[in-house]
């Protein structure tokens, strides 16, 4: 069965390593913070200028001057640092953030990503997404494998305007975990109960299936 949003977040959380600085995008990526594996500590970077983002505030802690990149009120952990937007993107652009998790409309087999603009629809802007995909060492994209009409979002070549080129390394969808490498999607894991055939059928780009593909493990 296709994964729920929470399950996708749980699977992405398995990509975390101890000591990682991580930037989580809006939506499913935000949920990843709830599933950090035991024994592993990560520090969350919020691109509006906060390293060491904590949970939402209590009523007593609420402060209009303390927000995250999603413009939500937030807290800072002990040992956090707060800085300007230029410093924040120096970190991001300079490759100091270990992992970025973000959503997308489309990804293609060359690691290109389209996530910010659908021609004909109102374009609200790219925010920090272009900087994040250009700067992070390690990008994981979360999205549904196909749109609601069954059209694949894993393409030979993105059809929408790009957010970044050749930058996506890993994709976690509701059906599979895939690695982007050498111009192809390499299937690494299946969602529980999902067949390779179904993944193949919903992957428009080149899919490499090498040997037995294990099911994802959730503890």
């Amino acid at each position, binding site marked *: 069965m296709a994964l729920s949003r929470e399950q996708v977040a749980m699977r992405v959380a398995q990509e975390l390593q101890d000591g990682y600085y991580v930037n989580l995008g809006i939506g499913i990526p935000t949920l990843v913070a709830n599933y950090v594996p035991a024994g592993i500590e990560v520090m969350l970077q*919020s*691109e*509006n*200028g*906060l390293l060491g983002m904590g*949970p*939402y*505030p*209590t*009523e*007593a*802690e*609420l*402060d*209009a*001057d*303390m*927000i*995250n990149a*999603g*413009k*939500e*009120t*937030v807290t*800072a952990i002990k040992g956090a640092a*707060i*800085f*300007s*937007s*230029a410093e*924040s*993107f120096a970190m*991001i*652009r300079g490759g100091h953030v270990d992992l970025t998790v973000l959503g997308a409309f489309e990804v293609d087999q060359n690691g*290109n990503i389209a996530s910010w*603009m659908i021609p004909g629809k*109102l*374009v*609200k*802007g*790219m*925010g*920090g*997404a*272009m*900087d994040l995909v*250009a*700067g992070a060492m390690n990008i994981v994209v979360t999205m549904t494998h196909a749109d609601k009409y069954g059209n694949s979002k894993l393409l030979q070549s993105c059809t929408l*305007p*790009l*957010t*970044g*080129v*050749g930058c996506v390394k890993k994709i976690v969808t509701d059906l599979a975990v895939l690695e982007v490498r050498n111009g192809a999607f390499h299937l690494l894991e299946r969602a529980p109960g999902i067949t390779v055939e179904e993944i193949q059928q919903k992957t428009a780009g080149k899919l490499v299936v090498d040997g037995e593909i294990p099911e994802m493990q959730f503890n």
Partner: protein
Amino acid sequence: MAGFNKVVHSYEDAMAGLQDGMTVIAGGFGLCGIPEGLIAQIKKMKTKDLTVVSNNCGVDGFGLGILLEDRQIKKMVASYVGENALFEKQLLSGELEVELTPQGTLAEKMRAGGAGIPAFFTATGYGTPVAEGKETREINGRNYVLEPAITGDFAIVRAWKADRYGNLMFRHTSMNFNPMAATAGKITVAEVEEIVEPGELEPSQIHTPGIYVQRVIKGSFEKRIERRMVRQG
């Protein structure tokens, strides 16, 4: 020091000299850290054809959004807009021009403007619509886009504490774009929560040295919250 007393006592004085067609760089991220009173003054002045450079354009009825009501903004340079219906309407009708700029590139363009760097290379936006019409170059095996700096006739920022020399400190994440905006204005106006005596701010903890700031005004702030999220305490 008469020559260094930058405190003004009215919003009229704070924004004196702002004219139709000028470029205004504004600090703030969403509604956090915005110079509320200075924006209100621009509305009052009815200055037209402004180019406004800011990460966002406020919401309906608050922040830079209020400058849309009388169509004072001709062009918006921002990374994320359209949190307000009026913005959408003016954009779709062609009354408002928008230059979308990646958030980090926008911050760096402001910093570069203030720091006398006319242009810099960045990987951000390479291969995307942002790079169209811009010079690109491969450096050490990666592709980069050349981005020009931004400067403004005015920069308007919000700070927490200031002294009369214009030294500024920002509070929590209301810092955001404010320090870079402050460097990039020909005239930089800081609206602040508190004015303290010179020497009260520890020199090495000043975020914006006074050399960048021409005017300081004490404001009072609503500090509207855009997305109020709380947990059970």
